[in-house]
């Protein structure tokens, strides 16, 4: 018999899976000779955003360390 917590987690995961159906046929973007899956394109966009955020966001404790020096 499944525990209550496990049922809740399984139900949530099932809803999440319904939002992102991973067994469906993949979607692709085309531009001239270039072709890329939407999934790969999203990952590349996320990497660029992470890179920009890493350059711009302040690092915790940096000001305190500078004042200390």
């Amino acid at each position, binding site marked *: 018999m499944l525990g209550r917590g496990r049922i809740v987690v399984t139900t949530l995961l099932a809803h999440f899976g319904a939002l992102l159906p991973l067994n469906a046929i993949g979607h692709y973007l085309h531009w001239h000779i270039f072709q890329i899956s939407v999934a790969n394109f999203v*990952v590349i966009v*996320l*990497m660029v955003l*992470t*890179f920009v*955020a*890493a*350059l711009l*966001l302040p*690092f915790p*404790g*940096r000001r305190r*360390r*500078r004042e200390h*020096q």
Partner: protein
Amino acid sequence: MSYVDIERQWTTRLRQRLVRLLPPDRLLPDTQPTYVSSWIYVFGVTTVAALMVVIATGCVLAIRGPQWWHGSSVGLFVNSLHLWSVEIFFFSMVVHLWGKFFMAAWRGGRALTWMTGVVTFLTSIAAAFTGYLCQSNFDSQWISTQAKDGINATGAGAYWNVLNMGQMLMWHIVLLPIAAVALTALHVLLVRVKGVVPPFAETTEMRS
């Protein structure tokens, strides 16, 4: 044995050379330069952390086998952990690579550090691709039949047969992980020997 004899031993000379090259306080430093206080420096260590999870989950998968990782909920969970830690590994490594490229991290005698990073990246790609071939499902069958045409077009198919499950499994769980971990260890040691590359402005100030 005299003092001179001890000094001439290869073990003594090797130890002295290693300690000179990498003293303990540089191997495990207490502090880092101020410029390291940036998020862009986090992605190298994130890559190493993800690699640890990849190796650990891979070991569990190797112990339990395909029936377990395809047929049980815990097996599917560990299989997913293996996949997603690889995703985080490559995600972090690419952001780390971009950061180091725009810092020109090969400056100051760090060319070998840069090149070990490049070779680690290429080795990891090979490790990931052979992983797709070792899933032991229809997905891996489809990928291997597609990959064989590409590999055969290069002429390497006679030695590197992607349809040979045994060969690909050995490359995926023995040779390539050993190479990736050894290269990562060498890369990290070289970072410790040469130190983290300083920003451009600081280099200019040091020169003037």
